[in-house]
């Protein structure tokens, strides 16, 4: 059970609005559908094909009118719930996310591949186990065009986190997911040289590059390597990558294979259920707990060596 429980009446107002929005949708469908149907028949009779196009546009408009309130409320519900959850933990929450430029450091470090379309949201900031952090959700895509076609590829969809420490690291150390035969390609884009570590299981899953061989081993202790491996148990299908630079640890959890092309975390998925039974609350809580477990597991205590 979560240590952060909620007052069941905290979201009464939202629940009232949810019921109103559902009722509004019902009414629009109840009256809108017959009106659009009749209007379509009449316009088709009088104006032929053009009338049919007008009817389709009308149907689209009716749909938007019916769903508008629920869409708007869905976003507000998410913001309210996550704000309360963040507040209970002494954190800040911003549904709009950080400035897009916040992703550039992750790109520079090779944790997020090259992209030309970016969407960020749901920024959490605060302190966990004595370590300052920021966590946000990111969707990065690469749109490529040639004369004949255009294609869009999702290069990253998941969580980015940054932890700040009271001391600077001398070099830059990057832990990338092992790409097998293609590891050499990753090596080209990295500043430092390959660091070969003693743990064969870790070496199979990750490849490490660093501008400081000794510091890389100072940071990637056997227990820290094990903890990074453990994160894979939490997100078995995700690509976990990390980097140490200056006084920060950067963590990138790419779940694009699981979440498809959309931002998959911290979303209200079902508006038909009462808020008290909202799976979203449990889901958000679970997602935040997973993050807390990761930080616990990494043992990022400011008073320790890292």
């Amino acid at each position, binding site marked *: 059970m979560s240590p952060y429980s909620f007052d069941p009446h905290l979201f009464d107002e939202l629940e009232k609005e949810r019921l109103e929005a559902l009722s509004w949708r019902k009414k629009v469908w109840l009256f809108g559908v017959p009106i659009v149907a009749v209007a379509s028949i009449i316009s088709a009779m009088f104006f032929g094909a053009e009338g049919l196009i007008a009817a389709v546009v009308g149907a689209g408009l009716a749909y938007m009118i019916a769903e508008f309130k629920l869409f708007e409320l869905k976003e507000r519900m998410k913001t309210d719930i996550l704000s309360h959850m963040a507040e209970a933990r002494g954190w800040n929450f911003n549904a709009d996310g950080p400035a897009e430029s916040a992703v550039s450091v992750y790109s520079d470090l090779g944790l997020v591949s090259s992209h030309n379309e970016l969407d960020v949201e749901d920024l959490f900031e605060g302190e966990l186990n004595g370590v300052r952090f920021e966590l946000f959700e990111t969707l990065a895509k690469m749109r490529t065009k040639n004369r004949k076609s255009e294609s869009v590829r999702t290069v990253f969809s998941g969580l980015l986190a940054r932890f700040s420490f009271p001391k600077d690291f001398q070099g830059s150390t990057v832990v990338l997911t092992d790409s097998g035969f293609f590891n050499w390609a990753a090596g080209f884009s990295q500043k430092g040289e390959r660091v*070969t*570590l*003693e743990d064969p299981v870790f070496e199979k899953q990750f490849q490490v590059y660093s501008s400081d*061989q*000794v*510091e*890389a*081993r*100072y940071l990637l*202790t056997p227990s820290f390597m094990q903890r990074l491996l453990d994160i894979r148990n939490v997100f078995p299908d995700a690509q976990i990558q990390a980097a140490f630079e200056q006084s920060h640890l950067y963590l990138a959890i790419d779940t694009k294979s699981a979440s498809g092309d959309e931002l998959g975390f911290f979303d209200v998925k079902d508006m038909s259920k009462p808020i008290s039974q909202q799976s979203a609350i449990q889901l958000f809580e679970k997602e935040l707990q997973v993050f807390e477990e990761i930080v616990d597991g990494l043992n990022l205590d400011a008073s320790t*060596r890292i």
Partner: protein
Amino acid sequence: MDGLWIFLILLGFVGAVAYFLYVSVIQKRNRARSAFSTIDVQLKKRHDLIPNVLKIAKETMKQEMSLIEEVTRLRTATEAPTDTNDPDAIKGRLEAESSLTQSMRQLFAVAENYPEPRFVEAMKTAQETYQEVEGHISAARRFYNSAVEDLQNAVEIWPSSTIAALAGVKAMPFFEIDDTERKPVDAGDILSG
């Protein structure tokens, strides 16, 4: 004439391969030496810390004079410069450093049994600083062992082993952790002994 050309091309090819192997072996040896220098820097930091720890210990741990003297002796023994061309000298130095590590761990473990608040506080601070340096030594040791492993492979696996033998390049010793070092120190054992 054709035969001479083929011979010259083959000779050139063999010469090029031998040169690249030579470069690789020497690079590996230099990398291992450089890694040893990194350890040396960290060990020097530890040596510089030890007198302060001993100063604190001497004031309170009067019954542990033999342990304090042992630490002092080992510190002095490890202070002499090490010839990085001589694997045996490196081995001796690393073994002495391991003994010093073990003695320091014993010292800190025994110190935990002295309840004087001022001493406990001073020892705690000293131990935290010491452990920070130990963390760096451990990282340097892992880098050194990785470099030594690469060198050892080059020295032992043909064809680079032949080039290494001709160039007089020898394997360097690993900086290993003693079994006793891997185990937690039991202060009870030390005190009763």
